[in-house]
């Protein structure tokens, strides 16, 4: 589904990502783990086009997407959830989700004047789907609340719902469980499993919570200093001595 081939990215003299090759299979949940500064988020930025690799190639659904602008990569079906909660704070929850759907004819201002019927029809079906996603993540009665007024956990759910409404096939989730309480973590993990099992999505996580890794992932890459040190099933990787060293210092 997604392959990175010998991808390298330098920031000045620092090799943030150094000759990394990764492969993510369809309908699987994979994870990238590693200490801070290992280059995990940089990998995400390279995949969705915020950064351009110095060398190497990225193939998405066998097509090269290396160096394409982020919006192009997004329209190929790549979705991204950010580490820090990002939402459109002054827009309501419903508006946040309505935004996500691609190919909205109402985004051309001329259509609002010369093809109002087309805009209205799209908006109606969009509205139905948006409510469905709000229900899916369990944010009831929040439709008209500005996103900025939600709690941290609720903002994560909203970001997730918006991501799903964009109908990506491939989801990059940067620390979906960070900063939320254990009940909410369980809820978020459930949602991730459901979208993979029921909707056939492919998910890559960046995670620090090892219990999360053990519960949901099929494949784990361990990164340190910009390189992939080991990979395999979560049990194998977590048993690896180098992983212990990096996380526990022993």
């Amino acid at each position, binding site marked *: 589904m997604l392959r990175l081939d010998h991808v390298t990215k330098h920031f000045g003299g620092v090799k943030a990502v150094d000759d990394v090759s990764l492969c993510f299979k369809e309908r699987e949940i994979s994870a990238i783990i590693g200490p801070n500064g290992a280059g995990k988020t940089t990998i995400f930025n390279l995949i969705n086009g915020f950064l351009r690799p110095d060398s190497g190639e990225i193939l998405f659904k066998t097509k090269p997407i290396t160096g394409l602008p982020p919006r192009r990569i997004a329209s190929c079906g790549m979705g991204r959830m950010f580490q820090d909660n990002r939402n459109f704070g002054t827009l309501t929850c419903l508006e946040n989700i309505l935004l996500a759907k691609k190919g909205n004819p*109402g985004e051309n201002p001329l259509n609002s004047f010369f093809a109002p019927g087309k805009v209205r029809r799209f908006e109606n079906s969009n509205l139905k789907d948006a409510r469905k996603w709000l229900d899916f993540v369990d944010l009831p009665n929040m439709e008209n609340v500005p996103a900025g007024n939600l709690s941290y956990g609720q903002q994560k759910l909203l970001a997730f719902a918006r991501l799903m409404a964009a109908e990506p096939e491939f989801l990059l989730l940067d620390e979906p469980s960070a900063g939320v309480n254990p009940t909410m973590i369980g809820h978020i993990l459930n949602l991730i499993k459901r979208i993979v099992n029921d909707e056939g999505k492919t998910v890559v996580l960046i995670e620090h919570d090892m219990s999360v890794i053990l519960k949901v992932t099929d494949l784990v890459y361990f990164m340190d200093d910009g390189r992939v040190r080991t990979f395999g099933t979560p049990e194998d990787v977590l048993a690896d001595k180098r992983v212990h060293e990096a996380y526990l210092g022993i």
Partner: protein
Amino acid sequence: MFEIYLMLGLSLNLLLGYLGLLSLAHAVFYGVGAYISALLMIRLGMNFFFTLPFSALGCMVLALIIALPSLRLKDDYFMLATLAFQSLVFSIFYNWTSVTRGPYGITGIPSPQLFGYKVSEIWQFCVLGFIFSAAAIYVCKKIHASPFGRTLKAIRDDELLAVSLGKNAAKFKVSAFVIAGGIAAIAGAMIAPYISYIDPTCFALDESFFIITIIVIGGTGNLKGPVIGTFLILLIPEILRFLSIPDAAAANIRQIIYGLLLILMLRLRPQGILGEYGLNKILSPYAQT
């Protein structure tokens, strides 16, 4: 007068309120619209109403030319780029004397005529202005309710996130700029026959600031803001006149009041009286509301 500034306020709101873009070049479109319309009427003897499409289209093209390089810059640098365009166009008005007659201005701009009916009395201009501003409100209302308007606000809130959802942020910004330029051009075309004399100082930097003041006081990101802002801002000179303060002093007092209002609003209510979006975020991105 009210209708003209209402149109200017509404159009700048598309940039300042919906996109959080502080453009100092709004008087450029106002001025170019006025000059195009006035010159076509005087030099070619065209009917006022036929000059409107030329004004609007001319300014939309100009908006495109200004927007493309300016929008590559962020925040304060965008503001400086628009300031540069404002100064540039002002000096063109001032120095291209063969066309604009420079500081002498253009005199004797004829009144609009429609089917032999002449718009010359104040109340007739009011009706005409009312029709134009109603059209501008209609356009802005449509945009406000449309997915286009929603996406503009999303780009204002978090451009990176909007891009990650596949939105072409640059295209949305340029479109808003072009629409705003077109509306401001019509306002300019209106002012020319209304005061029958235009010169470059009508469209100088302080005019851009004046339009910004309307939005800052009235409010950002919706339709009510510019309406209440225009009303209050134009009310102040009338109050001063009512208090029978001599003209020379009144002009200065007016400036002091505008300045004070700007500072107070930004300090106490950065989203304006009826606005949605705090303008303090434009100048200090880390400010919390």
